[in-house]
């Protein structure tokens, strides 16, 4: 399934909805979306992942980039990550570094 990353600002929150399969061939698209979001200096980054079917380490690296680009005070929320994507985040320790929620707000 084709990958898409759709960004919108909601007040002080940057919201990005991810869909499809996030591998190394499309990770730069996600990175550019994060870069775009960072320019609005959000206080929170909300990533909706309920329609994300696959995430390789290239996607995890963009999460690291997002945190380092937006700053320590910007919390990252991951919403609705499905089983395998969630497992990948848990195996790599990312579940401790972001706020995982089933739904938002």
């Amino acid at each position, binding site marked *: 399934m084709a990958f898409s990353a759709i960004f919108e600002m909601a007040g002080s929150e940057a919201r990005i909805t991810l869909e499809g*399969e996030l*591998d*190394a*061939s499309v990770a730069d698209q996600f990175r550019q979306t994060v870069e775009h979001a960072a320019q609005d200096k959000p206080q929170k980054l909300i990533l909706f992942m309920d329609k994300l079917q*696959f995430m*390789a*380490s*290239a996607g*995890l*690296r963009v*999460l*690291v*980039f*997002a*945190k*380092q680009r937006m700053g*320590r005070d910007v919390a*990252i929320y991951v919403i609705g990550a499905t*089983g*395998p994507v969630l*497992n*990948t985040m848990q*195996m*790599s*320790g*990312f579940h*401790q*570094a*972001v706020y995982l929620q089933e739904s938002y707000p």
Partner: protein
Amino acid sequence: MIQHSLPASLTALSDIRRLVTQACQTAGLSEDATYRLALAVDEIATNIITHGYEEQGMTGDLVVSLDQTDQELIILLEDTGVAFDPRDRSLPTAEDLDKPLDDREIGGLGIFLALAGVDRFDYQRSDNVNRNLFAMNLA
């Protein structure tokens, strides 16, 4: 054994995952095992394409072979890029995986996820061909 030859390009990753997933479904692997194997093959294929070919200014193919025994589903990735045994890469430690994102180095996770996700991994190089083998136990 079924073989598929694809151009060593990142755009081939989705086709590689599709081949692996179909083989897993035919072999009756669980959804979890299917995902772990597809992720493992994807991560190593990404490394081969990026570091084994593109960064060297080389082009070539990736040959994906699918095989099944009574005990295992076996995926073999063959390439003619630079020699690289993924097991030689230093993997993130438990301490590294506990670090907050601010302090993380970008990288190093792909091979960790690949090797941790499969039941058996092997690498050999002969006749200038790299052979990465992934196997999942059948129930």
